[in-house]
């Protein structure tokens, strides 16, 4: 089962969120970033070549022109292979774990997999980024030493940077699966996770985070009213 929705990122570019529902325990989200436009490519190429031509008129050395072409090609290839991300995918499998894949414009894919045993929770955090306040989705990892503590925060969708409405969609589905996983898991601490919600204030970094829902009926409320402000 697959559906597609259109959102926007923090700068106003268009994003497409594709959700694939394989089974009640397996879900995949694919967020596609805005593509590289012909206009920006032409602008960069023209700038580089004009600069090279200017240098050529000063130095009268034809190597500069061929060097400029070389630099443009290599730079474009390097940008497509190492910098420009085409789409980011989040795959959640109930008892296995969470996998994040970033696919670059040249086709290269870089994958990280986090086992479910290390995942504490998935939350939305607020952060101050330059002159803006943005929201981002992140995974909280368990601390091996302290059972209810957090050892690391792994942010998701860092290149796409979607806005809050898109994040809420992903967050809801993740919480469905995590709740199902915790209820059917064999660990005795499954029921105690609710107590630790308040312990996480000290680990969330900047700003507020979302409280997990203890009652299904609260889901229908306006999302804005549920933001809690921490210290």
């Amino acid at each position, binding site marked *: 089962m697959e559906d597609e929705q259109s959102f926007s990122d923090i700068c106003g570019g268009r994003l497409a969120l594709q959700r*694939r529902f*394989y*089974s*009640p*325990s*397996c879900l*995949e989200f694919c967020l596609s970033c805005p593509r590289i436009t012909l206009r920006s490519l032409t602008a960069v190429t023209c700038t580089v070549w004009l600069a090279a031509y200017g240098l050529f008129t000063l130095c009268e050395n034809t190597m500069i022109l061929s060097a400029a072409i070389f630099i443009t090609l290599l730079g474009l290839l390097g940008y497509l292979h190492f910098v420009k991300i085409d789409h980011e995918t989040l*795959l959640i*499998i*109930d*008892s*296995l774990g969470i*996998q994040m*894949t970033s696919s670059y414009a040249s086709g290269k894919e870089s*994958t*990280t*997999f986090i*086992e479910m*045993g*290390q995942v504490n929770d998935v939350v939305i955090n607020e952060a101050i980024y330059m002159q803006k306040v943005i929201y981002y989705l992140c995974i909280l990892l*368990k601390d*091996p*030493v302290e059972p209810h503590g957090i*050892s*690391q925060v792994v942010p998701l969708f860092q290149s796409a940077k979607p806005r809050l409405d898109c994040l809420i969609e992903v967050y*809801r589905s993740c*919480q*469905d699966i995590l*709740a*199902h996983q*915790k*209820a*059917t898991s*064999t660990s*005795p601490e*499954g*029921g*105690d996770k*609710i*107590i630790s919600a308040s312990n996480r204030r000290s680990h969330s970094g900047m700003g507020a985070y979302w409280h*997990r*829902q*203890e*009652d*299904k*009926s609260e*889901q229908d409320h306006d999302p804005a009213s549920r933001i809690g402000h921490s210290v």
Partner: protein
Amino acid sequence: MGLVSRGAAEAGRGAASAVDRPGPPDAVPNPTPTPPAEGADPGSSRSPGMVLKAFFPTCCASADSGLLVGRWVPEQSSAVVLAVVHFPFIPIQVKELLAQVQQASQVGVTVLGTWCHRRQEPEESLGHFLEGLGAIFSHRPWFQLCRERGSKSWSCKATHWQGPASPAASGEDQVMLIFYDQRKVLLSQLHPPTALPDRQAGDTTASAGGLAAVFDTVARSEALFQSDRFDEGPVRLSHWQSEGMEASILVELAKWAAGPVCLFLACLLSLISAASACRVFKLWPLSFIWSKLSTCEQLRHRLEQLTLIFSTRKAESPAQLMRKANMLVSVLLDVALGLMLLSWLHRKDLIGQLADALIPVADRVAEELQHLLQWLMGAPAGLKMNRALDQVLGRFFLYHIHLWISYIHLMSPFIERILWHVGLSACLGLTVALSILSDIIALLTFHIYCFYVYGARLYCLKIHGLSSLWRLFRGKKWNVLRQRVDSCSYDLDQLRLLVVAVQGLIHLLVDLINSLPLYSLGLRLCRPYRLAAGVKFRVLEHETGRPLRLLMQINPLPYSRVVHTYRLPTCGCHPKHSWGSLCRKLFFGELIYPWRQRGNKQD
């Protein structure tokens, strides 16, 4: 989605009954989780609605029907299938084989269930027969995997059969199939993510997780994969090696020859190290010189490495094996590069040309230096503050240069022969040749190094003075006596700085060649599945009503982590100069000691 409230969870745990209460036969994992009170039993590790994971090797996906053999991991509720036993078989012999494998490998291998690969219409008798096997091999849960020939539809069931007393009270669970490549998982070595700096390494092993258990199980069950289909054993198995055991003639020959060769070379090396450790070399002038020359340091380092490689003790852990392999490849590459350099030098007769060019160049350099010093001694702006100091330092430096030129002229008849013998040392490796080059530069430019020391000390004093003046100025006092640093002094500095920088660079290059793990990088390039950072999953074609199928692939380790994990130790501690600190020292005027070896007593 709502969560169970805390009170209900505690009540549920407290009221858990001892007998397993079965869920409905066609249990679908409903999104609203049921409270753990129903059917939760601290003895058995499952609750209704839980999804079991079955790791299935891709090589067995086209095998004939038979029994599934593997290991059940209850903590992860996952079954790792290692092989398929084909019909016909005698149950007693299968149990004997499994007991043998269990003893040899310390892995709890059992019969997990049945595998059915239908070629034509499903036969009723086969179905009943397969279910009857569940009574002979008692394992809970009992897996029944089934695949239709020619299509991609699989079906799997996992039943918890309670026994003949209550045949109806059997529960079924959903199964998730994860395919893995048995050969790659067997050969791969999992590298857990680096621990945070404030944690000890021992803490992370406890949370190693389910995937490490899967890798471990497959790697330790080598005893099960020893027989292939050409063997005439009582039991016929299907696994990754069942088409024929993998082996290589060259590897076998190398293993057979390695014993005597290692013994011989180890004796030879122990003789050499005993000779070098004898008392003659410990006398004061010699020991001082040996400790300062980088050539001796490099030779000693190489001797240690060769002793380690050719030691007759086997490597205890994969990390040690990797280190030995890295050292061997690094030594071989070094020697190969050195021989290439030697052949190039001899072909072009560069040594003769170098020897001929050396004297005129040295004369020219000395002449330029003398001109410069004369100009500095006479000029109003310069290195010194007053005339007397001016003259003293200038004459001092001029005398140095005179001594040096005499020394060069004295050595001139012997230079070619010395260079030729030095060139021969490239047979021992490129690093040795570079070290000798560095030592020659050091000896030839010793006077420049002295100038550098004097100049750097004075420069350092000047910088200190300036900084204190700057502080005074910020305290709102105007100081008329401002010292100006003359641009002319940089010309002399440039030469000194150049020489010292070149020496520093050569040292860093030698360090880099010494510590780069070439074998690990080659392995990462050619066989990326051997060094695994983790795994990645891909969802295969899925139809509603069928079980979820995933493909598990190995995620290779990034190059930066390969270098970081397998970097060879150079003399046991980090190099004294990194590239950044070299630049910083040059800029601020701190002294660089090109002859200071690591591990010696500091200044």
